[in-house]
């Protein structure tokens, strides 16, 4: 039986697929995965998932989008460099400061 293995480097990170192991059951799959996929990499947690339990949809069966031109959604004419946004940054700084003071009070 094949178990797909997902590794999370640090608490809060996504579990990322990193390979699979052959194992008769979940317990042994976890033990094998720990050695095979986490021994030499920083790891906070590992998931093992039976391959059969994974639902798959591929590009042959459906169209995933992103094929038509949607560049009108972008706003390239706005200036986004930080020099022009200094007042936004200042304002954010002032708000953060104010929140902190409210918290202290």
């Amino acid at each position, binding site marked *: 039986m094949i178990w797909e293995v997902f590794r999370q480097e640090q608490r809060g990170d996504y579990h990322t697929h990193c390979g699979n192991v052959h194992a008769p059951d979940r317990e*042994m799959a976890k*033990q094998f995965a720990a*050695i095979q996929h986490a021994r030499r990499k920083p790891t906070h947690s590992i998931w093992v998932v039976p391959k059969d339990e994974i639902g798959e949809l591929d590009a042959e069966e459906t169209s995933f989008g992103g094929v038509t031109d949607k560049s009108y959604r972008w706003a390239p004419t706005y200036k986004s460099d930080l020099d022009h946004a200094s007042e936004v940054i200042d304002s954010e700084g002032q708000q953060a400061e104010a929140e902190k003071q409210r918290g202290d009070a």
Partner: protein
Amino acid sequence: MAGEIESVDELDADEQEALETLLFSLADDEFVFAERYTEWQVRSPTLESDLALSNNAQDELGHARLWYDVLEDFGHEEHELVYERDPENWRHSTLVEQEFLEGDWADAILRHYLYDVAEEIRLEALEGSSYAKIAGRVEKIQDEERYHREHAESWMERLADGEGLERLQEAVDRLFPHAMTLFEPCAPVPSAEEASDDEPRAAEDVEETVVEAGFRTESLEELREEWVDTVCPYLEGLGLETPAVERVHFDEYEYEVEADVVADERGRDGSHTDAWDDLHAEFTSTYRELGRSQATKIMEKPQ
């Protein structure tokens, strides 16, 4: 108090001998078992089990190196300890030197289980060692040993649940007497310089000093009792027979193993089975053939 002894210079001659002897037994067990484990490489039943045993082998080699490194406090060097020592001066238990029966996975798993339970119990008794370097290295080893025991038990339970039971039973009959030698008192290794003017002390006396000086906080007898009380009910729970006798002692069940169950070759006293000569010749052959006089080191100090 744990870890109060920083240097061997603080110890008298008997204590030095006892500490050195203890370290030989610890290091040699790990090294020789690792040598045997590597025989399974590319031969295990599946890729995953192959990697798991190779992982154990690598761990045990690392642990051996931690202990051999402490032996350097006595002026030893790694190449001399591993590649130039006479086979009769090795102090490992005969459990770890046995050949694996060809293709017998139950043998590998049972041996792995018997050894790693003993290892866990022994390490607990070293946590509070009076010798600072021992106490300081135990935790690192325990981290890895935890996986070993879980791995062994997973396999034991799965093998016992079917046709593997019979092969496990054969392995118990064959290996149990050798496992008992893990708890035999260890004879000191004669040093080349002292030659024969000083008779080395008896293994039992050395063991007494090991405990009195606090190098290990429990006696071998206590370790053996705990081991027997752990492995015997476990094996019997899986449907296996052991040489242990169950007794009721102050309302509690206790397992006892008669003294004559222990294998004739003790390992700890320098007597070994034929399997050891072959294994020793094999792992030292490259060193001899290439005329080496140093061990190759990847890192200056073990980590």
